[in-house]
């Protein structure tokens, strides 16, 4: 069974703290994605990775960085958390590059981050 897990369901941090959100997939997927989900704004892509140590900025990368040292693990880092980063964070993964074949993104359960 396909599985994407995220390290925490709920997290509370203080302004200025460094925050690590971890995501692990067990499907040997090449692509991994980090989104944030806010009411009225839907899912917005922060960063994605198409291979180990490879990363690309999404639509809203400011204030975030990522790390992918192993194929199955993709970390989102908030270097200095701010209150406007309070959100639901969703990780997803998908198979690699097969031309002409759509690859479904599989999502984790999400981490609800509150920055005080």
């Amino acid at each position, binding site marked *: 069974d396909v599985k994407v897990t995220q390290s925490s369901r709920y997290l509370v941090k203080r302004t200025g703290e460094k925050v690590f959100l971890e995501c692990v997939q067990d499907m040997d997927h090449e692509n991994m994605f980090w989104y944030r989900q806010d009411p009225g704004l839907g*899912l917005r892509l922060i960063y994605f990775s198409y291979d180990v140590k490879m990363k690309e900025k999404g639509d809203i990368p400011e204030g975030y960085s990522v790390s992918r040292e192993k194929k199955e693990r993709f970390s989102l880092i908030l270097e200095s958390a701010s209150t406007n980063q309070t959100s639901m964070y969703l990780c997803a993964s*998908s198979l690699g590059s097969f031309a002409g074949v759509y690859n479904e993104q599989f999502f984790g359960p999400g981490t609800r981050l509150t920055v005080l």
Partner: protein
Amino acid sequence: QKEVEQDPGPLSVPEGAIVSLNCTYSNSAFQYFMWYRQYSRKGPELLMYTYSSGNKEDGRFTAQVDKSSKYISLFIRDSQPSDSATYLCAMSATTAGGTSYGKLTFGQGTILTVHP
């Protein structure tokens, strides 16, 4: 203007009703159209996938794509309380084989409640 627009609702219908969910988009390069369903406190799961224009049916669910109008729809027949969820449309210009690695652009999501 957002690339993908979706009425966030909320939408409340009685059990057995026909539900129509819609998205419009502005990027004519989009070719792959998806509907994801997200239950409360869960990550989104793929519900329907359509390539280019046309209809696709799966049980009580029908997805329609009209590329000439840049408009997609999801119809739910004989709606059930278990259909209560947030429905997200998503679109992609390429497959995972393209340079965007299957990157999806999501609508804002529509919150649907089906009451008994």
